[in-house]
């Protein structure tokens, strides 16, 4: 009996060791490109093109960072990306949570079919709409404006679905109490329901922020001046223009700058981000 138990323990240890080795190997391949990016961003052109590759920047060449800020308007791109991501996130949160609240709490005609229409819109791949959407932007004279970068991103069935599910799990009693105290539905929503929905808002907010920050195809199509470009588009143009000269150090420096905000937001809200994924149905 003792013996068997010991063997069992041994077996469990072997499984643990195998598991750890697999996970470490995986983590290594996940992180290597990031580390390589960071290292390369601090190397001189000469060291970058050394063969076999060198792994420790010598000298530590931080100048790539100010250099890339000089060669392209990184600050403008960064500002645009921030404005677009923040405003899209705030708008999406308000619009989706209001609609989601109505679907969860109010009784009205055609509630179910209307909700199904919203749900059905999540089936439409954005790429299918890109040509007519571009045309609509042109008719509105929105090409190369913040409106074009922000407004179409405010709407979607997923946020409404997520918020409705959340509000449905909340007890109605608190809201009823507010109603008795003379609050109208709008006041009840803002003062009672919304504060209770913070976890769901965090999930939706983090998702929207990261997806908007990373968005590439749409900003590429609707912007055409440096004043309006977002970081990914500006960086893509830099990558294209460097094809001959290949200033990899500067490119990597700009890549590091572009990735910091998303990694920051992700690490801060990891818990909510993972919750959002579990709810499923989230598309890139």
């Amino acid at each position, binding site marked *: 009996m003792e013996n068997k138990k010991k063997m069992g323990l041994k077996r469990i240890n072997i499984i643990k060791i195998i598991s750890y080795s697999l996970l470490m190997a995986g983590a290594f391949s996940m992180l290597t490109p990031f580390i390589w990016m960071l290292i390369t961003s601090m190397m001189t052109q000469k060291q970058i093109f050394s063969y076999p590759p060198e792994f420790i920047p010598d000298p530590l060449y931080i100048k790539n960072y100010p250099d890339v800020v000089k060669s392209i308007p990184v600050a403008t791109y960064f500002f645009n990306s921030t404005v677009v991501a923040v405003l899209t996130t705030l708008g999406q949160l308000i619009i989706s949570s209001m609609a989601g609240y109505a679907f969860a709490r109010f009784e009205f005609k055609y509630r179910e079919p209307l909700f199904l229409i919203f749900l059905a819109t999540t089936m439409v*791949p954005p790429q299918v709409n890109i040509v007519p959407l571009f045309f609509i932007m042109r008719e509105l004279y929105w090409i190369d404006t913040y409106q074009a970068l922000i407004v179409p991103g405010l709407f979607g069935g997923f946020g409404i679905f997520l918020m409705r599910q959340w509000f449905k799990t909340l007890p109605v009693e608190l809201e009823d109490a507010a109603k008795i105290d003379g609050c109208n539905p709008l006041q009840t929503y803002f003062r009672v329901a919304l504060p209770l929905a913070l976890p769901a808002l965090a999930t939706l907010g983090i998702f929207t922020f990261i997806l908007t920050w990373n968005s590439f195809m749409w900003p590429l199509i609707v912007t055409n001046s440096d004043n309006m470009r977002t970081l990914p588009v500006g960086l893509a143009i830099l990558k294209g223009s460097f094809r001959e000269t290949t200033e990899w150090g500067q490119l990597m420096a700009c*890549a590091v700058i572009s990735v910091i905000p998303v990694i920051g937001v992700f690490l801060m809200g990891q818990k909510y981000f993972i919750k959002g994924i579990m709810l499923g149905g989230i598309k890139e």
Partner: protein
Amino acid sequence: MDYKKFFASNSWWAVLFILPAFLGVFIFIIIPVFMSFGLGFVKWNLISPPQFIGLKNYIELFSDEIFYKVLWNTFYYAFITAVFSILIPLVLAYALDRKLKGAAFFKAAYFLPYVTPMIVIAIVWTWMFDPNYGILNWLLGIGDSVKWLYDEKFAMPALIIVSIWKNIGYNMIIFLAGLQAIPESVNEACELDGATGFRRFFLVTLPLLTPTLFFVSIMTVISSFQVFDLIFLMTEGGPQNSTMIMVYWLFKQAFEYFNIGKASAIAYVLFVIILLLTLIQWKTRKKWVLNE
């Protein structure tokens, strides 16, 4: 109608709460879907007035050799990506599902690629794939014999490697949720019956995980059909159209050749494919939710 009563009723409030979302979805999603369908039947270059030409765009599309090449490339890319984006995360999730120390670190590390902008990924991987100075060929010890992005045969596999790398974290989280939903009693029963290791994985865990597996497969295939950034940023469809896939082709037709009709026809072929996959997924969604 009693004005006061109407104002107090929920219907009025419902209109107020839903109107912004509805208007937005109507203008920016529903109208474009129908416009896109209509534009598939016209000849238009965005400048001169559109001209109705019936099914000609579709006929032209289906008799175009490149269309079949693009279709094949897209399916090839989507399915190979999906297979590995399922196998690898499945194994990793199974390894992570034994209350190991450092689980939070692994989750965060695996997730980084998923939240990283594609342009950043493209820059780093383009450099790593570089045949002369890239770290990859050096690590593999194959000199400059494989030219990756510059080689017709290796460009697509290179892109697939990057996609798998990006997908692993997302899929692993879903598998982990599926694994953790398996009741403890099942695992205990396995132990009592002496079903361990591989036997337990294939005979007990995997069957219980089937709904999740199916869900993840279809989601991964759908998102792979929509890939654009990766192609635009790393290969531009080349060399020799070897990485030309549907959304990138659509983009070229629309915004480089201004062939709006043809672009819209491509968009609808893509739409139908994705719609079919989505419908299959929705039919099985109930099973997935039960497993949660």
